């Protein structure tokens, strides 16, 4: 059992969720409530990681993060080490790759909050921020919650992108999914089986928590 890989996977999933939670609220709300030029294009771009093969996506990220790219060079200047094959690089790739899983359900959640309720909140004297906190978020919460659980579970299981952008550096980029692959390559089926079972267990627990929470919220609202 590769505890280091498990811990790395959980750390990656946690930080991905931490970054995507405010981002999904911001962008999901924007896409749900605002009509603007290029909205269709923005929605298509958010969806793109869903249809692109992870290797293709990983390849472009590798190019974008590489030392010859502007982003890569900037990172090197700022932090003194390169972005690819590091945890930070992996995290950025994970955030981008999870955009559709985080934003889509959040957007659906906010779309469920009708214009009439948002108008009512304003007529009750609530500032936009207060309306978000008191009215929109409580009602959009099932969507946002689903978004975060999907993101968490998906990050744990992602393989192609991690391999392309991160490689398999123990403690830095070797996640549980990569570790399982390595063990299978090394004919260590027993370790691979244990780690696979752990991943299944974590996934089941995550889904159970989601269903329980959304049922509780559903009861509270009805």
């Amino acid at each position, binding site marked *: 059992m590769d505890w280091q890989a498990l811990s790395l996977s959980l750390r990656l999933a946690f930080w991905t969720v931490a970054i995507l939670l405010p981002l999904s609220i911001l962008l999901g709300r924007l896409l749900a409530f605002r009509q603007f030029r290029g909205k269709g294009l923005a929605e298509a771009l958010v969806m793109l990681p869903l249809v692109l093969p992870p290797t293709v996506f990983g390849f472009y990220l590798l190019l974008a993060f590489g030392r010859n790219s502007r982003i890569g060079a900037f990172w090197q200047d700022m932090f003194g080490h390169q972005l690819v094959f590091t945890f930070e690089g992996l995290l950025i790739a994970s955030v981008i790759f999870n955009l559709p899983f985080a934003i889509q359900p959040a957007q659906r959640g906010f779309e469920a909050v009708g214009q*009439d309720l948002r108008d009512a909140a304003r*007529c009750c004297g609530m*500032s936009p921020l207060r309306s978000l906190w008191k009215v929109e978020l409580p009602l959009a919460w099932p969507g946002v919650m689903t978004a975060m659980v999907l993101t968490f579970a998906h990050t744990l299981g992602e393989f192609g992108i991690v391999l392309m952008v991160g490689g398999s550096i123990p403690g830095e980029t070797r996640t549980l999914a990569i570790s399982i692959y390595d063990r299978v390559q090394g004919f260590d089926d027993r370790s691979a089986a244990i780690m696979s079972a752990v991943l299944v267990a974590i996934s089941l627990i995550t889904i159970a928590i989601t269903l329980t929470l959304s049922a509780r919220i559903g009861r509270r*609202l009805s």
Partner: protein
Amino acid sequence: MALSVTVRATAPIPLDLAFDVGQGELLALVGPSGAGKTTLLRAIAGLWRPDEGRVVVKGATWLDAAALIDLPTHRRRLGIVVQNFALFPHMSALANVMAAMDAPNRPEAGRLLDLVGLPGLGERRPAALSGGQQQRVALARALARRPDVLLLDEPFSAVDRPTRERLQAEILALRAHLPMPVVLVTHDINEAQLLADSMVVLESGHAVAAGSTAAVMANPEALRALGIREAASLLPATLVAHLPDGLSRFETAGGALFLPSVGAAPGSRMQVRIMAHDVILSRGRPEGLSAQNILAGTVARITPGEGPGTMVHVAVGDHELLARITRRAAGQMMLEPGDAVHLILKSLSVARDHVRRADHAGECGSMAGVVPE
């Protein structure tokens, strides 16, 4: 004026009108759907910005398109009740009311729910309340904002008829607690005539008539826009007694009136809404009729319509009743202003919800002071 509104716009619908509402005055905006009533209300609330316009409330400018003043909705002190009530589904009735307070105050929210007739249901969520109860919560929430303007956007249209009548009666009873200007949007002329002090009749974004309710309802331009069959007048009447045969006896300036029983105590001052096309005119006092009501009056003026009809304004005491008869009948009777006539009215032609209490205060007297000025 407590509320002064001027709005001009070309989209989404053309609008071009201005009106004022005084402190404590209830103004009804009536007109067919698509006339711009709700859009106008949204302009007052700041939920929609017209091309040109001014909204001034108690001397404070909420909107002045020319001066680029546009106070955001949450900084406009207004209460609004909309057709579907828009209650927050995740909050209890009490929490809904408290959500509109500057400093959430549970006891005061409870008092407001008592005031609108919802004691003891504060912990329920909107989904567990009936349509009429939800409407009351919405009204309590609007009042909790301590509004300088109260906006009612078809607040009675989503509830069934008996509930609507009860709610309308309660709004009348609440009038004493509504010191602010109230704007009521409705397409129900009966509702407007019985609840409002003044009226603006809207037709494709223009005011075709404006003024006191009685004046507007006698205005041919307004009636053309509203539909001539809506022509009606109000007659003050005092309820004398409930009779065992299901009728109630009223006393009016023109004589006794027998109408289907209403839920009010003898001695109550009432308003009876009489549809112009239900009135028959007669020069002599007829006999042997099934109609129970024969009122005496004097022809004040006659305004011929475009079609076969003619509107005869008949003075009954200090009030004017409208009688819509054919031009042919008016000619045969050779009616002239000053002629004495009798108005004949079937008891059953007066719908129960066309008879209302005239005194605004009353039932809720003990709750005075709940809604501060």
